[in-house]
Structures are given as C-alpha cells and as structure tokens.
C-alpha cells in the first residue's frame, strides 16, 4: 500500500519539475552507546552474544559484522545468561566482541525465562529484561510469484528489475498472541573466470591468472573443477521480517529474489527460519521494519528504537539492541523457478577468484 502512495507522489513530483538533492545535515550525534545483539533459541547451541558500540548515523557502515572497525567491538566483557531455574551460562569471548556459550552448555527451552548479564572491562554493569521463550507453530507453506519492481538508480533514473516474490504461510495460530520473526539464507552457485585475469604492464594487458585457477579441489576425485572458478554464495536476510496473529497476516512477504547476477540461472536454495518471539521483541523488530519501509520522501514519523537492556550503574544511559529468547522452526527448499517469466540474468563475466565475492565460498554446501 505504501508503494502506491509513494509512486503517486513521485509521479507528481516529476510532473511539476520537483527534485531530489543531496544535502549536508549537521545532525545531533549520540553514538558510542553499547549495542547488544544476542539470542537464546531452542536450537542446539552454541549461542552467541555480540557487543559493540553504535556508530554515528553518517559513518559508512557494512551489514557484515566482520567489516566493523575493531574499536567499535566491545572486548573483555563478562557475559552470562541466567534462566529462571537459576542456571547460569558464561559466554566466552571467541573473537573481539563475539561471546559464545559452550558447545555442551545451556540449551534453550520453550517456556523458560532468560536474562542477560554484562559487565564491561571498566566495571559498568548491564542487564536485560526477562525474556520467556514462546512456543512455535511451524511453517505451513510458501508461495512464489513473479514480480517486477521499480527503483531509482544513482542518477535518480527509474529502472526496473524483475524476479520472484517469496512469501510464507505459517501454520494456523492457536495461541492468544503470537509474534514471529523470519530469517532466511539463500544459496546459489556462481562461476567466474580467474584464468582470464590480466594485469597492466607498461600499458599492455598481460595475462595474470591466480594460481588457484589451475588447481582443483583436493580430496575429491569426482570434482575436477578449478579451485576458484565455482563458488556458492550464501546471502542472509538483512531486513526485519515479522508477522503476528493480531495484525492478521496470513501470508508474510519474505523476500524479493532479484533476477540479477546469476541468482536464478541455476538452482536457488532457500533456508527459512521461523522465530517465535516475545511481544517486546516483536515491537523492537516492528519499529525496525517501519524504518526500512520509510526510506522515502513521504515517510511516516521515524521513532526511537526500543531496547530491553538497561544500565545498572546509570539508569539514564542509553543502551541499544535486544536480547531475545526465541523458539525456531526451519524449512529448506529449492525455489521453483518456473514462475520466472523472463530469462534468468547471468552473472557478468568476472575475471577473478570467485571467493572474493561477497558471502562467497568454494566449499560446496552439504545440501547441494
């Protein structure tokens, strides 16, 4: 529905010669707040808690935590999770800012409440509200349809891209209130041409293939492909996808699978996770969802993002993020490409090691 309204206005703007210009804003900055990103689930552990500091809005950012500035990662903190039965699990720092429970440690259970405790190196203490893990009903089915979507490119020229819209239908709700968050991971195969790589020598392009272009994967006599020509890209969901019984979504839109970069040339594997979350967690993700939907000129009022973490030393200190307890059901399948009404768009010829691409690996996934 928003789309409708936005389009109408955009047309109007063009019609009366309106325009969009980049401007410099000196926004009030209030970065460097503690950010907590953690979850206990009923899936087998280990579970992770990430601690970092928030960035200024206009700082460049990456949706990949590995691109983070090391100074923004919170090191040497004491992190533990306590359940309502008094069990405590201590999370060890595995890498800067990344805290993990032990392999054979705590396992989340539906109906049990969990609380996160953090003590920073400087002695500052933080605590989350109690999160009680709700039950989960599972996924009933999914839905695929062809779609195309318009967007403005960097020069504000409207372009369109087609692809498949993926939606899911959960099993019939039976509880009083149920809140779901959805995550997905999509995997597809790509092929690059590292053997064609060249370099510039005194104005001349001379061949410069990396060594891996002539090596094969060891330990697999049947797999004679070049070590860095064929890779699998596993892209994660980077949006807040939620649904609830109250809002009455029988079908939840999951993702628009773009017909670009070779995604739909071969098979596309999708793993969907259904996370049953608390009302508080739902409200947290709901605000984020609204933010995502509102990157438009006629956006609705953006608002403060809630949190369930408080500082024990200073109650006015702002803390960001959420500690969640969620039960998980998942489902995996290959996307039905017969819905695609256009030709699959291949990956442009890339003359380099396929592993340098984002989310790419040359290790064949087990399910492939």
């Amino acid at each position, binding site marked *: *529905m928003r789309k*409708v309204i936005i*389009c109408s*206005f955009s*047309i*109007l*703007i063009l*019609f*009366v*010669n*309106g*325009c*969009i*210009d980049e*401007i410099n*804003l000196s*926004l*009030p*900055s*209030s970065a460097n707040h503690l*950010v907590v*990103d953690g979850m206990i689930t009923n899936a087998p552990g280990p579970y992770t808690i990430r601690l*970092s500091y*928030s*960035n*200024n*809005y*206009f*700082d*460049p*950012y*990456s*949706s*990949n935590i590995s*691109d983070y500035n090391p100074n923004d990662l919170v090191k040497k903190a004491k992190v533990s999770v306590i359940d309502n039965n008094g069990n405590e699990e201590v999370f060890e720092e595995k890498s800067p800012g990344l805290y993990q429970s032990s392999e054979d440690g705590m396992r989340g259970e539906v109906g049990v409440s969990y609380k996160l405790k953090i003590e920073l190196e400087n002695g500052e203490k933080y605590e989350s509200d109690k999160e009680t893990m709700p039950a989960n009903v599972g996924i009933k089915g999914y839905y695929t349809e*062809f779609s195309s979507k318009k967007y403005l490119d*960097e020069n504000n020229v*409207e372009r369109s891209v087609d692809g498949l819209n993926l*939606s899911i239908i959960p099993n019939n709700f039976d509880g009083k209130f149920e809140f779901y968050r959805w995550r997905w991971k999509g995997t597809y195969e790509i092929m690059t041409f590292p053997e064609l790589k060249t370099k510039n020598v005194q104005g001349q392009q001379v061949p410069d293939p990396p060594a891996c272009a002539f090596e094969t994967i060891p330990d697999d006599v049947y797999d004679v492909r070049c070590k860095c020509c064929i890779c699998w890209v596993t892209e994660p*969901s*980077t*949006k807040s996808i939620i649904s609830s019984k*109250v*809002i009455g979504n*029988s*079908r939840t839109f999951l993702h628009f699978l773009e017909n670009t970069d070779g995604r739909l040339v071969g098979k596309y594997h999708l793993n969907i996770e259904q996370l049953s979350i608390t*009302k508080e967690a739902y*409200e947290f993700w709901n*605000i*984020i969802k609204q*933010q995502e939907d509102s*990157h438009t*000129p006629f956006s*609705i*009022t*953006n*608002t*403060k*993002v809630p949190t369930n973490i408080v500082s024990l030393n200073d109650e006015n200190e702002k803390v*960001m993020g959420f500690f969640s307890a969620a039960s998980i059901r998942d489902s995996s399948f290959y996307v039905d490409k017969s819905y695609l009404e256009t030709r699959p768009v291949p990956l442009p010829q890339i003359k380099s090691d396929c592993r340098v691409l984002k989310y790419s690996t040359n290790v064949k996934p087990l399910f492939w």
Partner: protein
Amino acid sequence: VRYLLTALPLIFSLSLAFGQDFETKIPNHKLGITLTKLITEIERNENVKIFFLPEWTDNITIDVSYSGQNIKAALERILIGKNFQIQTIYNYGIVLLRDPKVDEIRREIITNTEDEIRTYSFGNEANAKWGEEVTFNGTITSETTTEVIPGATVYANEVDKGTSSNASGKFNMDLPVGEHLITVQGLNYESQTFLIKIYESAQFDIILQENPYTLDEIVVEDNAINESFQNVTAGATRLSLEEIQKVPSMMGEADVIKSVQLLPGVNSVGEASAGFNVRGGTADQNLILLDNGIIFNPNHLFGFFSAFHPDAVKDVTFYKGAIPIQYGGKISSVLDVRQRDGNSKSIKGSGGIGLITSRLMLEGPIAKNKVSFMVAGRSSYSDWLLKKAQDEDLRQSSTFFYDFTGKMSALVNKKHKLSASIYHSNDKFKLANDTLYSWQNSSVSINFERTIKEDMYHISSLSAGNYSYEIKDDDPLEAFSWKYGINNFQAKSYLFWRQKNHLFTAGLDVTGYEIKRGKLEPTSSVSTFDEVALENEYSIIAGAFFSDEIQLGKFAVIPGLRLSNFALFGPFTQPLYDPEEPVNDYSILGTETYDKKEVAKMYFGVEPRIAAKYNLNLNSSIKASVSRNYQYLHLISNTTAISPIDSWVSSNEYIKPQIGYQYSLGYFYQTNKSNITSSIEVFYKNIDNVPEYRNGANLALKQNIETELINSTADIRGAEFSLIKEGRLSGQLSYTYSSSRRRTNTSYEELQINNNSFFPSNYDQPHNVKFNANYDISKRHVFSVNFNAATGRPISAPSERFLINNVSVINYPERNNYRIPTYHRLDLSLLIRTSHKKDKKWEGSWTLTVYNVYGRKNAFSIFFEDGTHGNYRYPKAYKLSILGSIFPSVTYNFIIK
C-alpha cells in the same frame, strides 16, 4: 522640463519682494495669434523680458485685442482660469508660473487613463467672466440599465473640489471659469475622466459604464478591511474575490485557500498541501464551508489547486480567533465560503484558460429580477504535460480533475430569499502501473433567509455532503480496491434580533455523520491482498447556541454560549481494554457491542465564547476574546499535510473529544484616511485530547485505531503583527511568531513520546514573514509581488546506527528534534487587461505569473538513503523539493457581459 518647473518658484520666490508694477503697454497685435506669438511681439517692441515655456502658451489663442492695455493686467486676463501666476522682477521681467502640483495631478491622471480624454466646451469663451465661478450640473445614469446612479462622485482634480449625485442621480457644483479635469466615479462603475472648458454655467449628463472587472465584490472589497477593524471579534477576516485574484498563484488562477494562507497566523507546510494550519492547530481543526455545506478535502491535484471555483466565489470569511457562536465542531478556524448569486437581469459569464485548467461560469435570470442561476465548472487537461515527459511510465500516467458548482437564488419577495447550491469535485490520478487514485467531494445545500421584521433576521440551512476516496489497482497480482467515505448532513436555523444596543443571535443545529472507515478488497482471484473491512461509525452532534452583542458606547462585548452533544450510535463494537494496561491490541479484555440506534458513547460540551472590543479613540481599539471549542471528529494522518488517504474517525470511549481553549488580545490601529491598518495580536491556545501517534503506529485500515494513538496536549502561543495598506499601492506585511508544541500525558513509559516532555508539532513553524503588494501601474496593468518565508518544519532525525542480526538499525532519539531548511519564496504576477470599450460584450485579461522567481528548491521533506561503495554503505541525506525551479505560467481570463 519638470525640474525647471519645480525650480522656478524657488528661484523667483526670492525676487518677489522686489517686484514692481509695470507701466508697459501692449503694442498693436493681430487677432487669432497664439500667446507665444504675442509675447514675442511684446518682447520685440518693448523693453521687457517675459519668462515662460512655449508649451504653456502655444495653445492659447488671442481672439480679443489687448492693445494699449497694461501688460500685466492683460496677461492676467488672458491667463485667468488656467492656473497661472504672474510675478514681476524689478521693472523689466515678467515670470509666468504654473503651480507644479496642478501639472503633476494632470499628468498623473492623463497617464493613467488609457482612453483618450475627451474634451467638452460649455458656453462661449467670449462671454467668460474670468476669475468667477459658474455652475456645472447634470444627471448621472448607468449605460446598461439606464437607471440613475445615486452616490457617484464628480471631482474636479485641479481645484480639489467634489460633489456626489443625489438619490435621483443629480449633481451640482460650482467651478471657476476655465479648464478642469473632471473624474466621475460610481461604485461598480468604471470611472471616467474628461476635460471640460467651462465658460458659462452648463448642464452635462454623464453616462457611466458598469465596471467590467470588479463585479459586485468591489463593495465588499472596499469595506472588508474596514470591517475587520470595526468588527468586535478579533481574528475575523473577510476576503473578496478581488483580493483573492490579485494574489500570484502558481498556475495563474485565483485560489481561495492560497489567499487564506497569506493571512498572519495561517501556515502551510509546503507546496503540495491545500491543508493549512491556523494558529498552531492541525489541518483537521478547520471548518470549511461552501454555502453552509461542509467540505472535507478542499484539494485538487494533491493541493496544487484548491477545490473552489474562483469565479463562483462571492466572498470568503475566515475566523481564527473567537469563532462566532453559530459555527461549531472545529477548534482552530472557520473558512466560510459563499458563492455568488446569479445576475438577475441578464446572462453573463466569465472564465479562464490556463496551462493546466480551464473554467467557465455562467449566470443569469430565470425569472427577471426574481430568480437567477449561476453554474460554474472547471476541468484540467494536464495530461499533455505528462505526455511530454521523458519517462515512459510518466507518459502512461494520467491525472484529471474537475469540479462543478451551481446556485439558484430566488427572491421570493422583498423579505424572503431562498437559494440552493450544489457542488461536486472529482480528482483522478492514474499511474502507469494501473493504480488509480480518486477522490471526490459533494455538497448540496438549501439556504433560506428571511426578514421577519425590520430588526429580526432569520437564516435556515439544510445541507448534505459526501467525501470519499478510492485507490484501485488492476494489476491481477496486486488487484485491490480501497474505499473510504464520509457522509454528512446538517440542519441549522438561527435568528438575529437587534434591540437597541443589543444584537441577539440564537439557534440550533444538528449534524450527522456516517463514516465508512475503509474497506480493502482484493479484486482478482490471485491478488495478494486479503479483505479488510472496518466498521462504519454513525454519530450525531446537536448544538444550541446563544449570544448577545452589546454596545455600550466605546465598549462592545459579545458573550455567547454553545452547548453541544455528541452521540456515537450503533451498530458499533467497542473493544474494552484492561484499565491497568496501556490501550493496545494485547490489553483487550473483551468487547461491548451496540445495536443499531443504541448510543455507544455520549459526550457533552459546554463552549463559552466571549469577544470584547474597546475603542480607545476613532483610530484605535483593543480587542480580546476567550473561547472554548469542542471537536468530536479527528483526522488520522501521519503525513504533515492533508493527503487523500487520511481518514476521519469519531470520538469513542477511548478517543476523547478535543477541547480547545483560546485566549487572545489585540491592539488595532487605523489611520485617519483609513488606508493603513495595523494590528498586534497575541494568543495562547491549549488543546486537550489531541491524538498523537505512538511510536511505530500502524494507521492504515486499523479497526481499533485508539491503540495507535496517545492522548496529548497541545500548547500553542504566538503573536501576530500586521500592516495593511490600501490604495493604488496596496498590500499587507505580516509577521507571525507561534510555537506549537505537544506533550503526551501517559504514565506508560513505552507510550511516552520524548519522555512526556514538550516537542514541536509536525507543522510548527515559529517564524513566518509574509509580504504581498499590488500596484496598479495603470488601469489596465496590475503588478503583484508575494513573498513568504517560514522556519522549516520539524522532522525526526537519526542519530546513530547499529547492527543486529545482520540488520542495520537506525535510532531516532527524539521525535521532531531537527528542522528542515527555512522555506522562502518570491512570486510575481502581472495582470494585463485588454482595452475595453463601451459596447464590448467580451472583456479579456492575461495573468502572467512567475512562481518561485529565484527558483529556490524549498525542502518539502528530508529523507535518508544509502550510497554503496564496496562492502560499505554511505548514508546520505536528501531533500525533496516539490518545486525544483522557477515556475512561469500564463492564464487568459475573460468576462462575457
């Protein structure tokens, strides 16, 4: 030459003391020569020097012999009545002086009159008794009706002498023998200037043409500003069509709403908004009436045009202070638009052709002098602009709107007037992707006015109206139809009764609403939409009111009281929320169901309103008012301007009526000639139960919308300064300071906005300067300038970002903590009237408008988007300007007589 003329009196005033009488006599001369020639003769023959300009004397002919007469006496005789002074220097020089003021006056009049100035001679010059006065009299009649015109003025410019015609159109005045530029003016008539050479008493009948441009409205125009000065109520403004037409508008078409936005205390958030905010109130707190019918969305084309046909409008009265007692239901203002009654004598019309719209109005008698009609329509044809667009999708889009209005008026007899009005407006906007967006307003009203006896006047009105919108998509996968509508009816009857120094107003009104809150339906079997249908709301508001305007010498006061009763009727389902919990979807304990005609909720409002005025002297007064208003219907919108998808909801158990208190105090000053009026007003407003949107509110198609709202209080304070000048150069300069703040008052922390502390409302624009000037370059050319500057409105700006579960999250620490850049804009317009002749049936004029002269890209909003580089994304801020450049337009307007 002009400098010489002005310098002469200065130089020679010094010499005057030395003046001596001349003994020189005039030599023999021929008859029929010019005075220039005669002077040359004198200078050649006598030892005398005469200073003069030949252009003064070239057209004075000497028909009588002055031979042998004293030169000074002779010159006096020749020049008498011609505005000359004769001065002598010593015994050899004579200076002919003309009063430069008289020349200035003449020159100005002559340059300002396009028509050739006709000359009429009366009497025989030979019989002229120079220096004496003669009588000039006659009758003034109208060309069109051939009736006599009472009250027309006859003015002799140079001698600054005037008279006016009596009830039978006769005038009579004494003038010195000689030449006079006479100007004759009558209300609604075109003024006429001619030159008379009067030597003997004469009779002259004058015929005036009806003024082709300023119709009946000129009467209002002349009094409007005066009236607001004399009005007891502060903050009441009447605008005439004439004033509205002078304001430069974007598409060159007079616009009622845009004119109202020029008044101090009235803001709008930008170009694409026909909604306006009055003294810090929301756009839904304005009651907009068209011949007493309620108009919900006064918008065409997303606010670029207002929905009132400019030629059909007679006048517009706008109240922003204490709202008169006969109006109820809204807190901030009343915009009462009245349509013209058709001409009851002959068929007339007017219209215009612009770049985007064309319009036509026709009026005339059905039964002469008894029953008249007026019909007007307007339609857009902006599609051709879209077809010119580069973008394929734009070319496939289309936009269209029209409106139609009509009025029939009947003078039943001298004491009874009956009129019926009908109005319909429609907007359609179709996108290339098959989404059709349409909205319409309809209103029908019957008004009956009768004079019961000389001091008692009774007005009754019945009206019904509808506002609805629909969004439709035909693309099978997304096919849907979303409909919203609101129907209303109103019956109103009130009485004015004057008794000595009292004017009583009393009456009753009943207003009913049916709100069809929304229905979303999938319109194809594969559509991804599910059906959502919200429950309709039925409500009736009954009101009774009484006020008394009491005049006590210099003091006048209007105490008044309005009682209102709101009832929400079934069928209605009210969820009941846990009183210990915030009102949300999770705290519903059960529901209460009300059957048809059962009262689901009732509110009773006591609305006292008092306005007072104290005249300090003839030129200045102090006005004060206190009022309390109730509003039972609320517009739910999270955009800043009125947009077509906003929806109105009724009050219910949880959505309380808004209660507004306003206190205002003002000082008003008017100069003696009443061409300059200035005022200072301060006001304070407090509005309880303003619905504010909670963080993360979901407003679209939400049945129990109360869960998305938080009760808040508005605190508004401000001051308005205004300076109005009338005359050839007319205009208004105003400055408004207003602070419009909100504060939520909930004890639940998760619902509090900015921790229950004050924050600026979405449309808060503290500083606002407006300047509008119109200069009548000549009778045919009017040049107008319009400038508007306002503080940028607030937005919620992001402060920080973090990553959680691969999802990037932005935190907006506070609501409305940042402002978009200052808004300012300059518009110019030139009105060119084509020449008009007496017998012309068609009068045309061109309006050339340059909107946003220096092409400022005023921000409508600011939004944020990311640029990408490698693995990183770079957030950027963008501003959206509705108008990205200078916008010139041309409109041709015409009047059919």
